[in-house]
C-alpha cells in the first residue's frame, strides 16, 4: 500500500529540488548590480506607510472560528458518506440528529449577528 504513495514523494522531491535549485542557480549565475532606483519599493506609486504588522479586525476571527467548527462537522461526514448505503436509514437519522444540533449553534450565531459585517 505504501508503494502507491511513491508518485507523491517523487512530486515533493521534484518540487523541492526545482525550487531550491533555481534559487541557487540564479544566485550563482545571475548578475547583481544593485542601484538606488532598483532597491526602491516601487518605481511608481506610494512609498509604504507604517508597518505591515497592523492589527486585524475581530470580525475575521469569528468567521475563522466558525470555519473550524463546521470543518470538523464535514470531517465527520466523510466516513458517513462512504458508508451511507450500508448504514441505511439508521445512519441517515443519526447524522440528521448531529446536523440538527449544530444547526442550533448556527441559528444562534446568526441571531446574535456574529456574521454581520458591522
Amino acid at each position: 500500500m505504501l508503494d502507491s504513495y511513491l508518485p507523491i514523494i517523487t512530486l515533493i522531491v521534484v518540487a523541492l529540488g526545482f525550487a531550491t535549485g533555481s534559487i541557487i542557480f540564479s544566485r550563482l549565475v545571475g548578475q547583481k548590480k544593485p542601484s538606488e532606483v532598483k532597491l526602491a519599493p516601487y518605481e511608481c506609486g506610494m512609498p509604504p506607510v507604517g508597518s505591515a504588522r497592523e492589527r486585524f479586525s475581530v470580525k475575521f476571527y469569528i468567521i475563522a472560528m466558525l470555519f473550524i467548527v463546521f470543518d470538523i462537522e464535514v470531517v465527520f461526514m466523510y466516513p458517513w458518506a462512504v458508508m451511507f448505503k450500508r448504514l441505511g436509514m439508521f445512519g441517515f437519522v443519526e447524522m440528521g440528529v448531529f446536523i440538527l444540533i449544530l444547526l442550533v449553534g448556527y441559528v444562534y450565531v446568526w441571531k446574535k449577528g456574529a456574521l454581520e459585517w458591522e
Partner: protein
Amino acid sequence: MSVYHYLTVSAILFALGTYGVLTRRNAIVIFMCIELMLNSVNLTFIALSRHLNSLDGQIFVFFVMTVAAAEAAVGLALMIATFRNRETIDVDQINLLKW
C-alpha cells in the same frame, strides 16, 4: 518499523511540549505547545492501534481532534477577551483572579 520507534518519537515530542508549556510566557505559544502534546498522544494512539490490529485508537484520535478544535475556538476567544481587558497575554502578568 516497530511500534517502539513510533512510541519513542511521540515521547520526545511530548517532552518538548511539556518543556514549552512550562517555560514560555506567551499564552499563544503555550497553546501551540499543548497542541504539540495532543498530537504526540495521537501518534501513540495510531501506532498502538496498528500494533494491536484494532481501530479503537483511531476513533479516539477522531474525538481528540474534535476536542482540539473546540479548544482552539474557545481558548483563542479567551485570549482575545483577556487581551481586550489587560492589553497583554503574557502569562506572568495575568496573575489576578479578579480584575
